Structure formats: structure tokens, C-alpha cells
């Protein structure tokens, strides 16, 4: 678990359209940040922006949705889906992308990376 000292503000909540993502640049690292609603309310998620199937930095531009309640983002290139909470690929058990801590401080979104 990360310590509070490593939280970095990246944008305001309003910078992300509900049910979509953006990409933040942190020390040369690309992190996809998502703002997604479900029945329980609104959630923030942070994943590595790299699509492991193509090597392209695109996951932040994928469509979000749910598979039987599991929130996911689908790669815009070849449509593999990744669990937003765990980073696990829903279409290939051997593949997983890194996840990061993310929180809302007032109107600011902060990432722990």
C-alpha cells in the first residue's frame, strides 16, 4: 500500500466526462484514470495506460461498461476487456495491467504512483 505522501493531483473531477477516462502523465509514466458510475454510486479507477496486447498507450480511450456487474474498460484497438478494479483481463486470464491508487480530494483527483 502506498503512503499518503506519494499522492499527486492530476486533474479536477470535472475534467473527466462521467463514464469515460483520461490519461495522466506522471514522471514519464502514463496512467489511465476513469470516472464510472454504477448502482452503488460513482467510482474512480487508475490503470496503466498501456494496452498489453498491442503495446499502444490507449487504454484511457477505451469504452467502459460492466460484465455481470464487473466494471471494465475495453481496449479501443482490439477490444479486450480489463477489470477496472483489479486490472485483470476478462478475455485472457494470463494478462493483467497494473492498477494505482486514486482518490478524490475535494474537486481534485489524486493518484498514488
Amino acid at each position, binding site marked *: 500500500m502506498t503512503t499518503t505522501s506519494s499522492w499527486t493531483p492530476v486533474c479536477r473531477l470535472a475534467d473527466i466526462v462521467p463514464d469515460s477516462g483520461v490519461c495522466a502523465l506522471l514522471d514519464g509514466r502514463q496512467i489511465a484514470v476513469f470516472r464510472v458510475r454504477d448502482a452503488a454510486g460513482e467510482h474512480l479507477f487508475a490503470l496503466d495506460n498501456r494496452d498489453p496486447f498491442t503495446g499502444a498507450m*490507449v487504454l484511457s480511450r477505451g469504452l467502459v*461498461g460492466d460484465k455481470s456487474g464487473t466494471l471494465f474498460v*475495453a481496449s479501443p484497438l482490439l477490444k479486450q476487456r480489463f477489470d477496472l478494479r483489479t486490472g485483470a483481463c476478462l478475455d485472457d486470464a494470463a494478462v493483467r495491467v497494473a492498477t494505482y491508487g486514486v482518490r478524490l480530494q475535494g474537486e481534485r483527483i489524486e493518484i498514488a504512483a
Partner: protein
Amino acid sequence: MITQRNLVVVGNGMVGHRFAERLVAAGLHQGWNVTMVGEERRAAYDRVHLSSVFGGTPPEALSLLATPAWYQDHGIALVLGDAVAAIDRGRRVATTASGRELPYDALVLATGSYPFVPPVPGKDGPGCLVYRTLDDLDAIRTAAAGARTGVVIGGGLLGLECANALRQLGLATQVVEFAPRLMAVQVDDAGGAILRQKIAALGVGVHLNKNTTAIVRRADGSIEKLTFADKSELPCDLVVFSAGIRPRDQLARACGLAVGERGGVVVDERCVTADPAILAIGEVACWQGRTYGLVAPGYHMAQVAADTLAGAAEPASITGFDLSTKLKLMGVDVGSFGDAFAATPGAQVVAYSDTAGEVYRKLVLSPDRKRLLGGVLVGDTSSYGALHQAMLNAVTMPASPEALILPATGGKPAGLGVDSLPDGAGICSCHNVSKGAIAKAIADGKLTEVGQIKSCTKAGTGCGSCVPLLKDILKGELKKAGVELSNHLCEHFRHSRQELYHLVRVHGLRTFDALLERHGRGRGCEVCRPAVASILASCWNEHVLEPAHLPLQDSNDRFLANIQRDGTYSVVPRVPGGEITPDQLIVLGQVAKKFGLYCKITGGQRVDLFGARVEQLPLVWDELIAAGFESGHAYGKALRTVKSCVGSSWCRFGVQDSVGLAIRLENRYKGLRSPHKLKSAVSGCARECAEAQGKDFGIIATDKGYNLHVCGNGGMRPQHAVLLAADLTEEQVVRYTDRFLMFYIRTADRLERTATWFNRLEGGIDYLRQVVVEDSLGIAAELEAEMAHIVATYQDEWRTVCEDPARRARFRSFVNSTDPDPSVVMVPERGQVRPASAAERSTLQPVEA
């Protein structure tokens, strides 16, 4: 040494051509010098659908692919416009009317038949015609120009076809039949009565029990009236004889070959005549005392003759013919199979007749009622395929066979399950495909659609009558395999796309959330979100990047550009009709240079600029918009391009301004979102340089206007477009295209191209024509209004983005930095750039963009 033998085929009709195809399939065209002599000016065409020429089908569309080029490609010498006049069996030489001498080692007679004209006084002279060839059609058309009423003598299958042709030429049409009913060979009295009722309702006069005694002419030779043995009369201007056909066996008679009692060259079960060097096939051949006037027996004989010549190890032979028929005459469905008249001793009959509903069904059963021997269907032939197969395969009848023809509560009879058929049952007789072969194709190819079965097995691509059976087989096989067939869009909506479209329209739903709340569950997914986004855009045409719509858009629509393998985008500005000014070309080059973009000319007559990063897209578009460009929607399931040839403005062959129409159409439909992408083209003449017949809708100029073709496709599964309507004005083209596109948008599945949609459409082109041209569903005005809304609310999506700071702000690589994406690396290739491969990234330095 290989000796080439000579094969002469006399006749280039449907059966002659099928024989040539079978020759080629067996490789025989390589061992033989094949010469084919056809008397008509045209190579073989589809005579069965002759009357469709008056319904708008161009004569070329009747082609059986029997182009002279096909013959040339296979080394077959095709002689057209000449006829074999004599056969010297001693010298084995055939001589043509023009004096050609054709020596043969084997000769095949495929001369077909000629229309029988009864010896009625007055039959010779102007206004009396026959109906068999395209030339006959021309003559009928010419004669009809000065006529108001036309009479067809003969109420059989061909006579009714011919009556339809006269009707389509605008003549008041009457049918005169000697027998007490129409289609006396196929249909019984009760069925004939319903048939008569339906045909009379179309405005065609039907006169039965009429023995024509004379055609009375005026002093100038023109026809005044017909007189009949019962002293009645019928005034008319034109008479077409369709009183049966006779085999053209004169050549055989002249060279002393045995002919049947009622004509026809006598053949054995291998199609060989009394002379072992001469074979006969098709309507001219007489097997076991009779000739066969249907194309299916002719096609079978073509195969038998090819096998005989090839010395095939397991040759096909004639064992008897199934003369069952299913057809649509003037929109009336008629089917007749097996022992339709219950001639079998002890045969049992069950029949259902509904004169108000204009439906008649009859089954002829074996004396123990366990087997189906035959039947007659009028007005509804949907059960024809299943019943016909049940007869052929001796399927045991249920305890109450009448349930097969009585209307169930749903209006249609229960019918026979396709499950009752054995694997060997021939489902598609046109292409000889069995139920087992179809089941295997479904299992092997994991097929889930009838369209796929058609392309894999060819079943259903001939006359199409087995398509309902294909559906049933597919359903059964998928059920067996445990595959659940559901048309639900995804787990979030228990509705098909068509149903969702309807719900959005009827309830005026404007957002995904509103639809999800009322008719769905969960949060949606990568399947339903873009599908609903497309439906919303097709209905309401709001900007796709409105905050409510943005999370629905797939990456291409989300960034209004086409994502590439490295995460960069390509940009395709609209170039309506492919017409572009030199200044615009220069701007494209300048923009590409400025942003370091790779340039490629597309198949749709535009320029694609590759390699733009997200944050560059608005900057690229600022410059393109300033030069007058608009979004080309290359990223959307939307209208792409309307391609054109240069047309009559420049081309010496062009007959209309194809560029002008293409620009008009492209500007009308630009921005239209649809279930899948839409492509179009306009050709300025029949040479078809714009390839309009490979498009979702394609227009080909004629000297009278435009022909509108629809549902063509290139790509993975090429499919020729079908003619929807001919010789239209520009306004008609627009009106029918409006209706066609909106009808497609209403009813297609998600990501279903028009060609696939068309293949699924029950009733095919006739149905589509009824809906779009004749407005049979009464929805044309609605469809036009919906399209008018789309046209009126068009906006250039890119201009809206560029002019709105909030939307513009969404186009950046990083939410917290203006840096370009460092992961994008280009390398040089052939004077431009391309994305670096993974290996290159680690070793190469990026080039200056």
C-alpha cells in the same frame, strides 16, 4: 500423341450453357475442341425470368454469366447468330445456315423447343406474336406501343408469365384458356378457382373454356377481335400465343434419328440418341415417350450428358424427373408437387380452401395415409419446401395429416418439422445440397446465419425456395449444439437492435441513460453503448460528443478520427463525389507536411492523412476547415463516400452528370449514422467505372435517367447490388434512397451491412421494392420525414469541436500536461513515415515529425 476430338453443341440456351459449365467442371473442355452454336444474338440467358425484363430488370441481368468472355476463357468457340441447318451423320459434319462446316466426333442437340401456334385463321400477320426469347420481347414491346388491349392465348404457366409482361407494358390484359381452369397441368379445379380469383383481382381478365375460332382483322390488316366457338367475341389489338411448346427436333428428323410419337429426339438414360455419336438434352430430348418443358430436368440431363462424354466412373443417369414446381405468378404463390391430381389408385385427399383468404392447400396421401404423394398450394407456399421434401423422402405422416394444412391459431399451418427429414434429403435442388451437407457446414463453420450457409454451401442461392428450410435446419442444428439463439443486443438489453430503435423513436428517448433506465440493466458495455449511440444519432442527430453521448462512442467516434495500431489517428476530409480543387489539394499536402502525416489515396476517392496524435487533431482540422473541408466520417458507422466517374461533363461515353449527382447525394446523406458504414457511387453510363454495383446504394446513368441498385458490397464477402428501380429521375433517386436508407436503419441488426441485411430480408428484392417504391407498408412518408430531419440538422462535427473550447479541451494526450505522447515513434519509409515496430523503438531514434 494427344488427339483433340471435336465436340459440337447445337443450341446455346439455358440447358446448353449448363452443359458447357458441366463440361468445364469435368475438365472436358481441355480434351475436346468444343464449338457451341447459338441461333440467338445473345449468349444464353435466364429464359425462366423473361417477364422480369418488363418489371425493370435490364436484359443483361438475365445473363447466366454466359458471357462470350467466359466461353473464350475456357477455350470454347461460341458461334452466335447462326444455326446448325443440317447434320451429315455419315461424314460426321454439321453445317450451319451461313455455310460453316463443323466436323464432330460427338454432337449434342440442345435446341430446346418452339412455341406452338394453333392453326387459327388470322394468326399470320401483324399483332400476332409469341413469347419465348428476348427478341420476342422486343417484338411484343414494339407492338404494344400502339396497342391498348392484349390477349394471351393460353392460361398455363408461361401464358400467365406472358400476361404479366403485357400488364407491365400497360396493356389491358386478357387471358384466354381452352381448359376449364388456369395452369391446368399443375393445379386442380379448386386451386385454379383461387388462382383465377387472385389474378382477376389484379385486373387481368380470365376467359376459360374458350376455343378460339378466328382472329378477325380489319381492312388494314390490324387485329379487331377474337371469336370463339361459343359465338362470343373479345376485341383486342394484340395477341400473344402461349399455347404450349413443341420440341425443335427438325434436325434430328432430317438426319434420320428416331423421334418420339409426340416429338422429341429419343434418348436413353445416358442421353444418347439412336446414333451413339449424338446426344440430346433439355426440351428437345424425349425420354420414355415424353419431353420435359422445365429447366430442372434439362439441367439434370446436362449433367448426365457431360458424365456420358467423360466416361465418368459413377455417371449420373436419368431415372425419372420430379416435375414439382413452385413459383410466383403476378405476385401469386403457386406450388404443385408429386401426384397433384391423386392419380394413384386409392389415394386419399385432404384439402383446405379459403376463398376469402384466397388460400388453397391440398395433400394427396397414400391409401394408408402414412405417406405424402403430392399436393397443390395456391396463395401461400411457405410449407412447400417441407412438404415436397417429406414426399421425396417418404417421411411418415402424422396421425392427422390435415394439421399440416389447416391454419393454426397463428394463421399458418403447423407444418412438418425439418427434423423429420433424413440427412440425405436434398434441400436445395438448384445446387444439389443435402440436409446432411448443410448440417455439417453449420457445425464445421460454426455458422449462425442463413447468409453464411448460402455462401458456404451455395444452398438457397438458386431459386431461393429452400431458404425457409435453411432457417429451420439452422435453428435445429444450433439447438442440438446447445447454442442459444437470441437476438438480444447484450446482457444489458433483452431487446434486438430493431426493437431498441423502435423504443427510442416511439418514446422519444434522447440518451443512453434514459433507455437503460427504462429498458435495460447494468451499466452497458462495448457492444450496446456504440449501438445505442448509433440509434440515437440516426433518430435525433445530436453531436456525438455531447457529454451524454461521449461515453458511448467507440474510440474512432470519440476522437472523430480513425485509430491506428500505435494509438495515433488518421484524418479523412470529405471530398464529395471525389471532386477536388487544386487549392484544396495543395492544402492537404501542406497540412500533411506541417504535421508530418503519411498520405494515402483511399478507395473512396479521398486522401487519408495518417499519424496524427490526439492533441494534433483539432490543429489539423483548423487548417482543413479554413480550406473548406468538412469531416469525412471515415471514423463512423455512417455515410462514407459517394464515388463517381467523370460522367457526361468530360467523358465521351457519359450520358448523365454523374459527378453532379454524386455530390448532391453525398451532401444530402453526409453525417447520417447507420447500423454499419454506407458506401455509394454514381456511374455516368453502363460502363460502370464508379463500381456502383458494389455499393450499399449505387446509381448507374441510363439514357432515360438513372438505375438505382442497392445492397451491394465489396470487402470480405463481395456481393453484387440488385436493381431496385430503373430509369428514375434525380428526384426519384433521392426519394427512393431516402426511404431505402431509413428502412435499413430501422430494421437492420447492429453492424449489419445492407448486403447481409438484404440476404436476411424475407421476400428479397420484390419485398424491398414493394416497401420502397410501392409503399406497401404505408411508411414511405414517415421514412422521408425522418431523413428530412437528418438532412436539416446536419452539422460539421469537426467545426463544432474546433469552435467550442470545452470540446476542444477533450483532445489532448494528457489531462495534466500539454506534452506530446512520447510513446508515438515514427520511422521513415519510401519518403514518408510509418509507426516504428517494437524492435525499432528500442534501437532507432525517432525522426523529426
